[in-house]
């Protein structure tokens, strides 16, 4: 079950233009020590990053021979990759994106608790992680007693809107015994899911103590390779009670429950042919997500659909052998 982590130099193995010309998160800004080399992987290639000494400017470049933890002067680095700082993360690209990063309006509200809930590596593809995040049906079985509990297992009909820019699933209702750390009793909880980026997804749900506002939890996926992802758990909460540590603990508890599921899925790359697996009506957002990736022409970390004929020809009358 060894995972291919062989890329040590900064040459990405990815040749998919859709994936190349996209922005990716590589680290929470606060977790980068100024003046020291940090290393990670993106699209199969090794990249290094640091912050300028004394300053907050992140610098990212394709890895050369430098070791993790070595001292480096960020200002003197050649071949710097484009960088954005948004939502508290450093984002970069190996291509030339024609678009800027998506926005999350709630992040501008003054009393928001914004933090990285943990950047956790998982032996699966980024789209498998996104699809799992969009899924409600697993709550009673994977997040038992927290996000769901038997026998209240029904996924009610919900709405999905798809545009070129994003997928929006609304009116998503599920019975939850403890939907958030600040919730005590079981209740029907309403979610909105949004996919504004092939490998990024967020959910909005009403704040248990203030129904007029929405907590935002997002999964920003850094595709290290096609079958290995670093998932950045982003939290943007309205919560005056719990400590940062408690909020992070709750998020890691939930993600930690998803992890063994994701690592036991086969194949690891997401199959885009709807007939490769068995979707049901509850999987509407996943069906839309797979079709949306297909329409974008994305091939990285997925198994592209082999253009099935949409209208099956009548099969010949069956004959009996033997």
């Amino acid at each position: 079950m060894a995972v291919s982590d062989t890329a040590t130099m900064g040459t990405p193995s990815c040749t998919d233009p859709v994936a190349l010309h996209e922005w990716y998160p590589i680290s929470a800004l606060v977790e980068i020590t100024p003046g020291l080399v940090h290393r990670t992987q993106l699209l199969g290639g090794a990249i290094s990053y640091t912050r300028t000494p004394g300053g907050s400017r992140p610098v990212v470049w394709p890895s050369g021979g430098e070791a993790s933890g070595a001292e480096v002067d960020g200002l003197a680095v050649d071949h710097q990759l484009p960088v954005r700082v948004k939502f508290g993360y450093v984002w970069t690209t190996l291509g030339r994106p024609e678009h800027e990063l998506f926005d999350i309006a709630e992040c501008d509200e003054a009393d928001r608790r914004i933090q990285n809930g943990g950047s956790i590596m998982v032996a699966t593809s980024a789209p498998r992680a996104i699809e799992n995040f969009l899924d409600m049906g697993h709550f009673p079985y994977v997040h038992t007693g927290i996000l769901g509990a038997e026998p209240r297992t029904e996924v009610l009909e919900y709405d999905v809107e798809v545009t070129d820019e994003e997928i929006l699933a609304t009116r998503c209702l599920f019975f939850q015994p403890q939907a958030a750390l600040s919730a005590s009793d079981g209740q029907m909880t309403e979610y909105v899911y949004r996919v504004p980026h092939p490998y990024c997804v967020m959910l909005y749900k009403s704040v248990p103590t203030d129904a007029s506002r929405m907590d935002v939890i997002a999964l920003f996926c850094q595709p290290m390779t096609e079958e290995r992802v670093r998932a950045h758990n982003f939290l943007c909460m309205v919560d005056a009670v719990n400590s940062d540590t408690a909020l992070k603990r709750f998020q890691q508890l939930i993600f930690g429950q998803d992890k063994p599921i994701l690592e036991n899925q086969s194949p690891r790359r997401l199959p885009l042919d709807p007939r490769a697996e068995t979707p049901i009506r509850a999987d509407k957002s996943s069906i839309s997500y797979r079709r949306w990736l297909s329409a974008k022409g994305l091939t990285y970390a997925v198994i592209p659909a082999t253009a099935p004929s949409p209208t099956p020809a009548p099969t010949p009358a069956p004959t009996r052998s033997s």
Partner: protein
Amino acid sequence: MMKIYDYELSVNCYKQRLLLGILGVPYESIPVDFFPGWEHKGEAFAEINPLGHIPVIDDDGYILRDAQAILVYLALRYDPSGLWYPVTDPRVAGEVASWMAFAEGTTNTASAARLHDTLGYPFDIDTVRAGAQKLFRVLDDHVWFHEQQERPWVASAPHPTIADLALFPDVMLSEQGGISLLDYPALRRWTDRVKHIPGFTVMSGIFPAPAGAAPAGAAPGGATVGRPR
């Protein structure tokens, strides 16, 4: 009340929660921002454990660190049956101590591989994985031969001991370090038996056993497992 400096995804913290749950001892979990905050490496935590490790327990002012040591303490202090650390039987006690030391090895290999693959710890992944495979072969052999003698647990007592709990999470979560249990069927059966111990609790990454029929031998006293035909 007993306090445990705790991190949800830590196997060593889970060992304590597991035993406390089985013994029915109430405790308060003090969350430590182990990741991404590295709080256990900070100055404030050095007051509690200068080694910068969790778990640490604070039992009414008595502070103790080290996963295996805490298991010993909790069993001797809170298990009136005396079965979880059966010191009155020198042979079994010796076996328990021996497998507790073995658990240091599985933590330093299998669980190290998991920290590398999950949180990015800078271990030599090939070395720790190979080390885990070597230990798992030994443990799988041992558990298989025990099964043939109708001994369901790692020590030769007819009931589980803290040695089972010390080893369980390292084995159970090894797949997160890229070590499949496919070659260790006796270990997979043994983890099923651990899951049926009354009072068993899960951590993130470990799912419970099915309700209903427990495999024979899961509860203290039972001892039947399959024999070759």
